[in-house]
């Protein structure tokens, strides 16, 4: 039984491999999500660099057509499911309990299981490069191209099994986080006092809870079509490829908000701290986030404007899509309102947060353009869309994640990332990102379709493709600078105080890094900005009473074991059914052991 005497200063317990493998501590799990998410971010980035290298000049010969199709498919899958989502989950894990004044998430072992299952799915999906070829039907895997007849390799099977496993992981994590937010808040932490980051996280989790089952059904149908003779998506047998598109986008459009909302939350935390004033229009930002999520379920067909939708659905889905501009606009104006009248301290975190506003605005505006079906009929499936999604996902989601990394790094490690390297990191990414992605608007308007591995020199696309490729290398250098910064900083002595930025939220009320039990005493919340309220009203948090022991859940190896079982289950489906049986046995054994394991 792990206990920590509340009166003792934070002592980091000995960190061995086994403590990491069996941990149920949300902070360790968050760190593991972060490290693996960033590793996959690097892999996805390398895939992107290969793509850009191939496209630098017309008729490029760096990689062949099939490899290119694998690369753009895996670039999307890696960045979405293996990089941005786990990086978001990393912050959720680490900061959710800290920000709401809890000692852990509602179900610590389930949390560990989510991570191990994620890792199983991620490794399985990525291993496809080694075992017979990666998925090559696009991350959207449109039927009937995804059928065995047209893509007979194992790539699509890896896609189906990998996404099913990753979806299971996300669902478990989302349920866990949602229960935690709803039920584990510190005294006084009402819903309308929750930090905006936590609100956006709650919205993300409900988006996942309600959209993952839909893609699960689609994937199951694809699995059955490819392996068990059904014809859900085979037109010649009465199937309908458009059904796949509907099911896919009912999931995949909310998924876009799953990627961007966490960063909106991070920016909403960072801006007020360094502008030294409360977030402007808290309620409006929260409700706008909820509105985006609700509308996000009613816009999926805007990905299908060119599939021959009738007039009425075109109008309806166009209207609902344009309507999203309203809550999005509200958020942007409120962030500007937060800057207004501030006394802004500019460090790297704030650079990224302010850049987020600008870049996300550009991505949002180009999104409004193809919300109009006529305009979309020219822009759909061109590089204009590629430019749009990268302004939203790189300029938005990734910029927000970097803001979060620089902002929370001292809390997570006790160390400050170097500011000089940080600013170099920022400018390289900011400039590189604009040089890479802005010309893609031009390419799209010039008629360059997406997902082409080659193009002729007679189309006027040479210059901007070369510019974009140069930009992508600048991005690569920017990421290398970050890695140098990270490893260099980790060698320094931890010096961070509890609240080095003078922030308002509860994670800054405990030590940096936090003790295993998070808080010596569960804080009491009196305001939306609790630490500022306490500071302004001279309130001291109560001292821990001597001799009080805090009970923490003990480590458990069952989550790891069950994750291994899931991995075997997946590998078995792709190779030999005996492995599936072994995986199932391991899972059953783990469930049994899990249920009987004492936890207090």
């Amino acid at each position: 039984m792990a206990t920590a005497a509340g009166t003792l200063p934070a002592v980091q317990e000995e960190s061995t491999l086994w403590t990491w493998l069996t941990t149920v501590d949300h902070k360790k799990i968050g760190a593991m999500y972060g490290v693996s998410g960033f590793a996959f971010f690097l892999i996805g980035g390398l895939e992107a660099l290969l793509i850009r290298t191939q496209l630098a000049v017309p008729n490029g010969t760096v990689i062949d057509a099939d490899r290119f199709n694998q690369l753009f498919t895996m670039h999307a899958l890696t960045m979405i499911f293996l990089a941005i989502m786990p990086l978001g989950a990393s912050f959720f894990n680490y900061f959710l309990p800290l920000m709401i004044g809890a000692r852990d998430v509602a179900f610590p072992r389930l949390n560990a299981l989510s991570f191990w299952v994620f890792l199983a799915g991620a490794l399985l999906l990525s291993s496809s490069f080694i075992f017979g070829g990666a998925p090559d039907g696009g991350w959207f895997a449109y039927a009937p191209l995804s059928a065995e007849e047209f893509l007979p390799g194992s790539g699509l099977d890896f896609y189906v099994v990998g996404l099913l496993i990753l979806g299971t992981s996300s669902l478990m994590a989302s349920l866990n986080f949602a229960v935690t937010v709803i039920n584990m808040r510190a005294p006084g932490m009402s819903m309308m006092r929750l930090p905006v980051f936590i609100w956006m996280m709650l919205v993300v989790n409900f988006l996942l809870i309600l959209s993952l089952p839909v893609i699960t059904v689609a994937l199951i149908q694809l699995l059955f079509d490819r392996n068990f003779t059904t014809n859900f998506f085979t037109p010649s047998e009465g199937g309908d490829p458009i059904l796949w598109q509907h099911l896919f986008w009912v999931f995949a459009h909310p998924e876009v908000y799953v990627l961007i909302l966490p960063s909106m939350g991070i920016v909403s935390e960072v801006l007020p701290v360094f502008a030294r004033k409360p977030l402007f229009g808290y309620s409006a930002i929260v409700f706008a986030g909820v509105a985006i999520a609700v509308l996000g379920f009613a816009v999926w067909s805007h990905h299908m404007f060119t599939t021959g939708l009738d007039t009425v659905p075109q109008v309806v889905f166009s209207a609902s899509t344009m309507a999203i501009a309203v809550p999005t606009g509200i958020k942007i104006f409120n962030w500007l309102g937060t800057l207004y009248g501030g006394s802004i301290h500019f460090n790297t975190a704030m650079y990224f947060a302010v850049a987020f506003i600008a870049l996300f605005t550009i991505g949002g505006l180009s999104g409004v353009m193809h919300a109009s079906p006529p305009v979309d009929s020219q822009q759909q499936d061109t590089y204009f869309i590629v430019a749009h999604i990268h302004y939203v996902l790189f300029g938005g989601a990734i910029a927000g994640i970097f803001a979060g990394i620089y902002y929370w790094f001292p809390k997570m490690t006790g160390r400050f990332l170097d500011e000089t390297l940080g600013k170099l990191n920022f400018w390289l990414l900011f400039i590189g990102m604009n040089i890479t992605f802005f010309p893609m608007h031009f390419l799209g308007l010039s008629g360059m379709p997406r997902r082409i591995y080659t193009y002729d020199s007679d189309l006027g696309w040479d210059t901007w493709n070369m510019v974009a490729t140069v930009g992508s290398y600048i991005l690569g250098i920017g990421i290398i600078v970050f890695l140098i910064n990270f490893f260099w900083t980790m060698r320094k002595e931890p010096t961070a105080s509890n609240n080095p930025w003078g922030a308002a939220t509860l994670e800054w009320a405990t030590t940096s890094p936090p003790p295993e039990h998070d808080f010596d005493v569960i804080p009491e919340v009196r305001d939306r900005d609790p630490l500022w309220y306490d500071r302004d009203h001279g309130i001291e948090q109560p001292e821990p009473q001597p001799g009080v022991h805090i009970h923490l859940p003990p480590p458990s190896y069952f989550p790891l074991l069950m994750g291994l079982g899931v991995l075997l289950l997946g590998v078995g489906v792709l190779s030999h059914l005996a492995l599936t049986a072994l995986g199932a046995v391991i899972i059953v054994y783990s469930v049994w052991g899990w249920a009987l394991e004492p936890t207090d």
Partner: protein
Amino acid sequence: MAASEAAHGEHHASAGVDNRLLLMWIFLASECLFFGSLISTYLIFKGESLVRPLPEDVFDIPLTSLSTFVLLFSSFTMVLAVYGAQHARPRMMKLALLATIIAGLIFLGFQVYEFKTFGEEGLNLSTNQFGASFFVLTGFHGTHVGVGLLYLGSMLIGSMRRNGLGRDTATHVEIAGLYWHFVDIVWIVIFTVVYLIP
């Protein structure tokens, strides 16, 4: 299986509901979308089959009504089990759990028989869109019943132990009951939409 996870969080419950119960409620919301998608698929392909057999060729409504009744009855016994657990009547709880499990097994037996009969009448996954969407929909429902049986079964075995299910018995049985009722309700929807509406 989330046995005592919430033990250290008991005093929190900001929403006044047990963590595990809340987890099950939200999970069932997700399940609604899962079955919603499967049922939508079935409806989209209604009338799209290129060859027979069609629903009217294979359905035996009286027989399926009987199995539906058995499953409905198991919801009633599940209510009794929860009542027994909440009012410290372990014997009643165990008997009711056993009855629920038996009813569930009978339902699954009917389903196996139905699948087998349909197969003999020439309907399988590849026959037509009806076959594909019917078997995948009802198959996944059957899988949910099967998981529920394992769930209730382990609960019954657990309650036979000296300490039974411990101090949280009522909560455990209530959560299992939620799941079981959900699976029953889904079947009512499937029975109505798939079997009854022509």
